[in-house]
């Protein structure tokens, strides 16, 4: 079983890679950060007896993805699973962030995912079932002021995943869209979760569990996975309440949280 993981050197990507290696899957890992990618490749190779390839790539660069695929073809690899984990977020108000940084959110989260998914689907193992995981977010469920571009980019992925899944029915393939709340992927995210107080803890999911269930549910053919009962409740509420209300509510809450966390010096 061959699995490709993008964003494999990040918190969630690493946890996915560990779980896949534990299950005995052969891995092809990619990430923009070459030294970090080498670290996880070596770390896994020391622990598990599975084949682990790694190749750095900037997924926002089309030529880079072509080169990545050329390397895959050179190795003669065909895949059974694709985990689209690579994604970024820059917190803060629209005008408080640099223009190109905001644009990059869409370039990686959406365009990058499209590029890789399109290319890897053409390199699926023709004789076996194929699974794709797209990482959306709880943020995709609402318009989110102060995370506007990020939340919208995740909404794109949610709809894309659902639609692609339909297109692939009858081709022995499934697309699972993962919509996690908080995950303790790195120190920065942990700080953000803490700044949200009780709400942060409530929406935070145990990463090791999410990882295992995501893989299991993807193989079982599930379309969407929202970890945590509280998050599922938020999802239902989000559907019932008008978008302008949720946007206003979220804006109030995030203004408080981000004051505490992003701009602590501004607190009198």
């Amino acid at each position, binding site marked *: 079983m061959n699995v490709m993981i993008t964003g494999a050197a990040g918190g969630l990507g690493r946890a996915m890679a560990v779980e896949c290696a534990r299950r005995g899957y052969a891995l092809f890992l990619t990430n923009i950060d070459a030294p970090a990618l080498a*670290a996880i490749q070596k770390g896994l190779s020391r*622990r598990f007896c599975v084949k682990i390839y790694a190749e750095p790539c900037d997924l926002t660069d089309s030529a880079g993805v072509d080169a990545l695929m050329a390397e895959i073809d050179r190795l003669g690899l065909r895949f059974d699973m694709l985990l689209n984990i690579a994604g970024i977020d820059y917190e803060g108000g629209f005008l408080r962030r640099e223009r190109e940084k905001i644009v990059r959110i869409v370039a990686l989260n959406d365009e990058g995912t499209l590029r890789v998914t399109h290319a890897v689907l053409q390199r699926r193992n023709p004789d076996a079932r194929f699974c794709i995981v797209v990482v959306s977010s709880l943020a995709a469920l609402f318009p989110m002021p102060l995370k506007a571009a990020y939340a919208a980019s995740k909404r794109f992925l949610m709809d894309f995943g659902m639609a692609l899944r339909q297109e692939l029915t009858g081709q022995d393939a499934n697309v699972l869209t993962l919509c996690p709340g908080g995950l303790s992927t790195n120190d920065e995210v942990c700080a953000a979760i803490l700044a949200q107080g009780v709400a942060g803890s409530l929406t935070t999911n145990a990463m090791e569990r999410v990882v295992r269930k995501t893989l299991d549910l993807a193989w079982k053919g599930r379309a969407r996975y929202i970890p945590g009962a509280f998050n599922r409740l938020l999802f239902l509420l989000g559907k019932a309440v008008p978008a302008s209300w949720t946007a206003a509510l979220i804006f109030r809450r995030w203004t408080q949280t981000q004051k505490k966390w992003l701009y602590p010096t501004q607190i009198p």
Partner: protein
Amino acid sequence: MKTIVITGATSGIGLETARLLACRGFSVIATGRDAGRCKAARDSILASAPDAEVRFYPADLMRRKDALDLSARIREDLDRTSAGCLHALINNAGCAKSWYATTEDGLEQQFALNYLAGFLLTYGLSPALSRAGGRVIMTASQSHKGARVRWDDLMLTRRYNPLTAYKQSKLCDVLFARALNDRYAALGIRAYAVDPGLVCTEIGNKAGGVVGLVWSLRKRHGIPPSVSAEAFARLCIPVQHPAGLYHDRHGEKAFSRQVTAENAARLFSVSERLCGISYQEET
């Protein structure tokens, strides 16, 4: 002047132990993860002991590469200042976490920092330790008694409980001390594990979440870190190696029944594999 190395000396138990040992006439090489905090800690030690010999090296010990680079830098320092001899290595840097999180190479963070970083550093410094008949001291904890090593899932990915992971990492510290004694007594190296007691430090607050809340209440009953530092001084100051494996500031004490020669040897070989190193080559 004898030289000691202590990790995690920018706050809590490590800072007070570095201060105490510097005051008692040791040359202290200390480490922390943040350069700014290293400088502040050095200033604070020099303020209480102006003649102290203390230098700090920053390194993020959760990263394998940093730990190996750090041991290379310390070796150079020892060659320059102490004829390549190290009297004691105190592996003290540690953390508590609220959630499952991994290091760059995919290891659970408490296991990686509280135990494996010490394993790596001891490996890098073992020639200098053996030259001086040195001591290795692991900051363990009484909580190691409630733990067993989960050999089939060392990183505890199945039903992760942060407290269980913490306790297991501390049990590993005691097992490592035991393994060092079993393997390297002939080289003159002697290892100990220390129970610092319940100490009023920020360790749990840095974890946040539920762990942070519980710790805020618990630490009120703790002793000041300067008091727990005495446990380390008792093991560093005597000319002869003190007897025993597990100590607190009053002396030797009983450790977990999980600390067997078999478990110690097993953990040692797993750790060599996880780190991609072999002690045999270095010593």
